[in-house]
């Protein structure tokens, strides 16, 4: 089927579309904290937290092809770094973000050492161990003085005070404040900034020479090596960076006030959640984890009270009334199976397919110079194989 419209990449139409999308995004981002209910702001903040973690996992798994089931541990390292810095040394929570980033980077790079030699299932197992061990390690009696053991740490966030500054613009205050009465928008904006940082890092990497080398490692690591990509160094740095970025949303959870080692996202459940969010959204695409996190959080909220039969929409009641727990996980498991058939590249890939039916984007010619068909100048004969081109 022929698309209805064609747009030139980089042309005025494509810029107009970009500007409209950006404006819509900014509008939504301002609408949620100013006009949304408190529970909506909470939901959005959680979705952003998942987004950050799934984006960082995506850089490692989606683009570089190195699986990790230990990202909950890096998430937890972020949370505990912030918690310890705040409770022990009275740091301002925001100042702990770079520390969390650095600590997770070092741990991630160390974990990557075995990852240089193993792949696939074996790498999954090694990293799974990390995810399983982390909560146990936090509960270890010998470091309980630091981590608070299984009770966790409290007062790990901001100090609320009636006299704290607010940042009103002529009485308009979308940012919230730290006076203890309007703090949810404040967390929301921290989450937005964290996701933005992670997204920009990923985007910058993926669209560069380094990004090509990452996909090259994923697609064919031997060929990447003989193109001059230093496999060990690149994998190690990506592992470290992915871990470091994953620590940032972890750090945010600690800023909300309490951290315990049994928080779902800090256990292996967290790793699986990040993985599902990433795969449902679209592995190896920049927007996949973003879409995935929104959809995941939306479904989780919607089905949260489906334990009582009368809360389930009547059409769906026969399918879910037997469940004693919220059926979100089951729904995701099923949709994952369906997605693998319908859209192997996740929701982001599916969206591209659908849009591609309506709008065709003509890409810019590759390379930076214009590539008019050049005459063979160097005396080298041109080569056109007579082979019929069956594959398209």
């Amino acid at each position, binding site marked *: 089927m022929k698309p209805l419209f064609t747009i030139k990449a980089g042309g005025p139409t494509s810029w107009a579309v970009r500007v409209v999308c950006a404006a819509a995004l900014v509008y939504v981002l301002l609408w949620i904290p100013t006009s949304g209910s408190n529970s909506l702001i909470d939901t959005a903040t959680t979705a952003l937290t998942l987004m950050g973690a799934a984006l960082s996992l995506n850089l490692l798994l989606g683009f570089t092809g190195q699986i990790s089931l230990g990202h909950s541990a890096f998430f937890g390292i972020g949370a505990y770094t912030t918690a310890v810095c705040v409770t022990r040394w009275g740091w301002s929570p925001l100042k702990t973000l770079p520390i969390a980033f650095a600590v997770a980077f070092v741990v991630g790079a160390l974990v990557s050492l075995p990852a240089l030699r193993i792949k696939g299932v074996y790498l999954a197992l090694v990293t799974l161990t990390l995810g399983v061990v982390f909560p146990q390690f936090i509960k270890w009696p010998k470091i309980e003085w630091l981590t608070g053991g299984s009770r966790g740490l409290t007062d790990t966030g901001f100090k609320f005070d009636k006299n704290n500054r607010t940042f009103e613009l002529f009485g308009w205050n979308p940012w919230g404040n730290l006076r203890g009465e309007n703090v949810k928008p404040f967390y929301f904006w921290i989450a937005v900034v964290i996701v933005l940082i992670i997204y920009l890092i990923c985007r910058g990497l993926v669209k560069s*020479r380094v990004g090509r080398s990452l996909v090259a490692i994923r697609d064919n690591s*031997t060929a990447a090596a003989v193109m001059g990509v230093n496999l060990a160094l690149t994998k190690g740095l990506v592992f470290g960076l992915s871990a470091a970025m994953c620590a940032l949303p972890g750090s945010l959870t600690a800023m909300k006030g309490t951290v315990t080692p049994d928080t779902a996202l800090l256990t292996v459940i967290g790793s699986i959640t990040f993985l599902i969010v990433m795969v449902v959204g679209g592995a190896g695409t920049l927007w996949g984890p973003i879409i995935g996190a929104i959809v995941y959080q939306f479904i989780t909220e919607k089905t949260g009270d489906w334990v009582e039969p009368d809360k389930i929409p009547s059409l769906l009641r026969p399918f879910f009334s037997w469940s004693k727990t919220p059926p979100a996980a089951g729904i995701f498991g099923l949709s994952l199976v369906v997605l693998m058939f319908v859209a192997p590249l996740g929701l982001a890939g599916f969206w591209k397919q659908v849009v591609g039916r309506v709008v065709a984007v003509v890409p810019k010619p*590759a390379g930076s110079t214009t590539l008019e068909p*050049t005459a063979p100048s160097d005396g080298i004969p041109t*080569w*056109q194989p007579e*082979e019929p*081109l069956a594959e398209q």
Partner: protein
Amino acid sequence: MTSQTTLLNTRFLTAGYGPVTVLHGIDIEVNEGEIVVVLGANGAGKTTLMRAISGTIPRTGNIEFEGRSIKKDSTDAIVRAGIVQVPQGRGTFPELSVADNLLAGAYVRRDGAKAVADDIAKWYSVFPRLQERSTQRAGSLSGGEQQMLAIARALMSRPKLLLCDEPSMGLAPLITRELFNVIGQLNKEEGLSVLLVEQNANLAMHIASRVYLLETGVIVASGSAAELSADDSIRKAYLGF
């Protein structure tokens, strides 16, 4: 041989996989501007030889490139020194576009986007098919096109020595012939040195400056293409006539 400068030189090169030794002391030489063909049957150790030279498997013995030992160098250092391998079975990056594959080939270059873009334009003019398909996924190309892409990608790093691992594998005879013609022309026009391992003796012999015969990890004969095809037993075993 006249007084050509030696580009690559291996002395008692031994390599294998774990407990299995595949290459039992290989001595080969590639001079500047030569196409050297290593012929061997399945399991002779052709691919292992390529891997040992490009450093993707552990090896012992000595390898000298431009008079410097690269025995202890890592794969990426060897690429930067100027040896680039076209892996067997093409080994393009299927999810990257044709243009991005070429850019990936220029990974080790530090001379700026302009020079790289010029090179892309140059190889597009040699392989116009690649230009037509520049924005397509490499995985959607036909076998012949992928082999072109793999060679163009390797050339993007401006190698001094190109290693070709069975370029004819899985290609129709006509395509193979064209491919060898292009390699021969690149050698003549650009002075590109090539080390090529092949089973397809007939075609490879045509463009070869010198030929080595590899049998179960040992070089059993060497000489010019004419010398080797004059030898009856060799002709029977490898050329089939």
